[in-house]
């Protein structure tokens, strides 16, 4: 049977044959994915199974590879933002902001404090939605659908806030070099206040639903553990690394966008298992809420939402339609005629999944000479086969779920 699934020269086919000769029992091959409800995206795992136990695994990625880096080499900087949206689409504002900050570092643009605080609020909202999706779907993968339905409505509420800020919901394309496209409306702040008021109680209930649930604990504790040393060597960052007990967080290590102004702790786990990953994300949501509240409380007076850099900042649309100067600036910026220094830049932000880095090489032309995305998902998905070896098939599902692998970021 297994020979029908894999060509005879595949190493698993060979193993199956040898094993059959030894004791008469037959191992089997299972294709987990590419399109399977539990793979959270389009990627495949070829599993070598002994009954329900996984002996070995071979991951295959690249099913939605869209050549972002190649496309980026052919586009002016403003046209690259939509590419960053589609990396980790569960928290696209973080990707957007990371990209703008990379350009601001390149161009030496100083962003006003108020715009930085607004960015912090958006990035933390994005982190919350990212964790809502990851943890609630982990619940679904263990058979608990209620929690998912219960907290998912709050992702909707965050998307409504995005809508007020920029008009888009999922692929937000939010921001400009130097700040935002427009100031936040009073309605955006009102929706944010409602969210801050209603969400904590729901999240508390969500935590209660899982964290002391016997079935959930049985399914996740000591499932897919990874040691701190291994996690560092595999290049883990973000909640997956912190669950293993390492308190590395880009927001603390190299603060950007005024993160140094806020007080927050970095939750860490101990054993690096699925349960710890779940709990670390839960705890991070509370920290994000605290950061948002602090940012609102400390928000500088005024309405500065962008830096005064006419060479890089796209003029408002109403000016473009009525003012010749603005039209010319708009044209020059969109066509990529803004002066760009020759440089090599690396900038990292703490994405929903971990360190999201942009390595940008410019040669003075209107497009990047080279742009490399350091995608956290891609980096740590290679540890997945090792994490599921020896586990049951049902464990492989929850381990994958707790790693929060997003196909868009994995393949880029």
């Amino acid at each position: 049977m297994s020979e029908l699934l894999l060509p005879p020269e595949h190493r698993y086919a060979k193993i199956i044959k040898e094993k059959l000769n030894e004791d008469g029992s037959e191992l089997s091959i299972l294709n987990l994915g590419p399109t399977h409800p539990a793979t959270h995206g389009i990627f495949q795992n070829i599993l070598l199974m002994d009954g329900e136990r996984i002996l070995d695994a071979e991951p295959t990625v690249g099913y939605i590879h869209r050549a972002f880096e190649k496309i980026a080499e052919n586009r002016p900087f403003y046209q690259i933002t939509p590419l960053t949206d589609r990396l980790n689409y569960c928290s696209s504002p973080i990707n957007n902001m990371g990209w703008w900050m990379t350009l601001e570092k390149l161009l030496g643009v100083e962003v006003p404090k108020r715009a930085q605080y607004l960015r912090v609020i958006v990035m933390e909202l994005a982190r919350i939605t990212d964790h809502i999706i990851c943890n609630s779907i982990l619940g679904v993968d263990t058979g608990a659908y209620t929690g998912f339905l219960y907290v998912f409505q709050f992702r909707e509420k965050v998307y409504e806030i995005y809508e007020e800020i920029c008009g888009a919901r999922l692929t937000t394309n939010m921001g400009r070099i130097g700040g935002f496209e427009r100031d936040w409306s009073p309605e955006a702040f009102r929706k944010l206040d409602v969210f801050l008021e209603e969400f904590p109680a729901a999240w508390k209930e969500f935590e209660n639903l899982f964290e002391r649930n016997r079935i959930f604990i049985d399914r996740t504790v000591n499932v897919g553990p990874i040691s701190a040393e291994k996690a560092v060597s595999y290049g883990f960052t973000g909640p997956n690394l912190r669950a293993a007990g390492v308190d590395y967080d880009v927001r603390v290590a190299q603060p950007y966008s005024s993160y140094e102004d806020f007080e927050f702790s970095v939750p860490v786990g101990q054993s690096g298992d699925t349960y710890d990953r779940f709990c670390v994300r839960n705890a991070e949501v509370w920290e994000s809420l605290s950061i948002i509240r602090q940012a609102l409380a400390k928000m500088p007076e005024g309405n500065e939402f962008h830096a005064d850099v006419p060479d890089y900042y796209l003029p408002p649309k109403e000016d473009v339609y009525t003012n010749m100067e603005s039209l010319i600036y708009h044209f020059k910026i969109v066509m990529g005629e803004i002066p760009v220094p020759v440089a090599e830049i690396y900038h990292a932000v703490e994405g929903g999944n971990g360190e999201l880095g942009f390595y940008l090489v410019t040669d003075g032309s209107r497009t990047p000479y080279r742009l490399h995305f350091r995608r956290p998902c891609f980096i740590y998905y290679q540890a997945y086969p090792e994490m599921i070896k020896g586990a049951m098939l049902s464990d492989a599902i929850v381990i994958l779920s707790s790693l929060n692998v997003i196909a868009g970021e994995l393949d880029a």
Partner: protein
Amino acid sequence: MALDTTQIQDKLTETFGSAVFQYQQEKDIFSFEVNADKITAVILFLKNDETTRFNFLTDLCAIHYPENEADRQFAVVYHLHNWYENIRIKIKVYINGETPEIKTVSSIFLSANWMERETYDFYGINFIGHPQLKRILNMDEMVSFPMRKEFPMEDGGRTDKDDRFFGRTIDNC
């Protein structure tokens, strides 16, 4: 005492002499070049030395410079991070364009395994000693290495996006 860039430079000069050169501070990252044959030794040293302690390989990728001389047509770029002192460095290694090959660092950092596969997939750089150097994002049957500059994304005959039409060349920036 906090680690500073002169210490890193002194250590490397002391141990590897002229094989490590072109030290410079690029914005917030200390950068230097390393001769291709010494890269594994340098990275191993930077990781294990009790002063430098670069414990984390942040990123690994390549760049194609077709205009360069034959020996410097590809660059492999390593970003390392010392989490104890919170210092990042960037290492650039230029390699030959005819036979692009360099030793793997996947035995030093497990994370390098897939990053090197990705770099091979896009640029055709052979990482000597890599345990499983095969394509990762593109399909196995593919024969070209698409991120090389000789594969333009659009029709080469198109001139509407030529920089000269916007009054700018590499020389006047």
